[in-house]
């Protein structure tokens, strides 16, 4: 029996997100907890959105990598509360997203008390183009190839780019 020589946390932290492979689960803030006891480990993850189709893939990856590292008993559990916020993306994660041409999110902040306000106008916070840094950008769609991003276009370099939505 080979006992694991690396901590389970360090392995789990490095697993890439299947849909945004330039960032790790830790960078995205979806890795909530890693509990290690001998060669048994329980990893807790949280979905970004309710329908996130990558959860199963993430769970597979965690199990596989941890088993390869010598952990015989790997459990992956989901935690729904508190719900994921884009504010949980680390500074390293934000830098990696930007380097890959995806604009990182503005702070989600906390909502005011009372009913959730409608937002009928354009976003008040300009999103800088990750390629040319121009803030002359327009949102072309609030939704993009994955639930967590929206679609923008830069009016200076004319390139389209994605922006991770603040939630």
């Amino acid at each position, binding site marked *: 029996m080979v006992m694991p020589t690396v901590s389970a946390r360090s392995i789990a932290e490095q697993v890439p997100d299947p849909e945004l492979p330039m960032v790790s689960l830790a960078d995205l803030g979806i890795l909530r907890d890693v509990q290690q006891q001998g060669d048994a480990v329980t990893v807790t993850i949280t979905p970004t959105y309710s329908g996130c*189709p990558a959860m199963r893939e993430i769970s*597979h990856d965690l199990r*596989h990598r941890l088993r390869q590292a010598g952990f015989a008993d790997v*459990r992956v*559990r*989901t935690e729904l509360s508190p719900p994921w916020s884009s504010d949980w993306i680390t500074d390293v994660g934000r830098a990696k997203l930007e380097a890959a041409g995806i604009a990182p999110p503005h702070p989600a902040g906390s909502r005011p008390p009372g009913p959730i306000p*409608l937002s009928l106008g354009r976003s008040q916070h300009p999103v800088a183009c990750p390629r040319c840094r121009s803030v002359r950008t327009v949102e072309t769609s609030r939704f993009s190839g994955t639930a967590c991003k929206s679609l923008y276009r830069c009016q200076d370099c004319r390139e389209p780019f994605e922006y991770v939505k603040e939630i």
Partner: protein
Amino acid sequence: MSDSPAMSDSIDDEFAAHALTQDSGDHRWAFGTGFTDALEGVDTTLPAGVDGAALGAYCLMLGDDALIYSHRLQQWMTRAPELEEETALGNIALDLLGQARMLLARAGRADGTDRDEDALAFFRDDKDFRNVRLVERADADFAELIARLLVFSTWRLAQFDRLTTSKDPVLAAIAAKGVKELTYHRDYAARWVMRLGDGTELSHRRMQAAMDNLWPLVDELFHTQQTESALPGVAVQAETLRAEVDVVLDTVLATATLNRPAAAPLACVRGRYGRDGLHTEAFGYILAELQSVARAHPDATW
């Protein structure tokens, strides 16, 4: 590849490395096609004093609303007027499907029958579905799609916002996630209603007609159910949502220069509505499409 790989190369490498570490290639052909539990590892113990059967029935209502409406939205795939709209509708449908999966999983556990989400989605008959009738019909055009999305997401957002303080921690957690998603759905629909209502003479006329057609189905959203009353502190009584929903709808309609429709509510049949298992003709067609493969191959795995 050059000695100092460009960024896109390193991403490709990461993809490749990722693919090579899989234990089996089978599950990689598409994400999420396996039948895993949507609440895997979540503590689903019933809180003290909560009636499991009632909680199960309540989660079924909320889950069925999302499941059926998600299916209707999915039918817009490849039919939306622009790629950006199709992407939006696909993501909204996916969020709702995610909510449905968790709610159905909660329902089957809470009511003690231990049915999983697939048993509930694919192997119940129409009279056992508890969705409101609003989610059933097909949309005749984009205006009808947007009208229903506005009403549905406004109503569900108000409902989920209240449920974030539910005494059932699982329901509260599902709601807290859903609130963030539904806020985006409602904004999306509201912006389109404004654009079309306050657009050209033609778009205005069609947006108004879509609202008028939808209106008979709206009243039913605010009928409090016995199940809701049987779950104080856990469920939301539907009638209490009306004021908040009205304020939002009236604001959007006024901004869009549309009139609030005055059409009478769609009649019930012997006191029964969608929540009682009484559905419209369109519902049979949805279930046929949704369930036929699973029923023809009940033991299939992929």
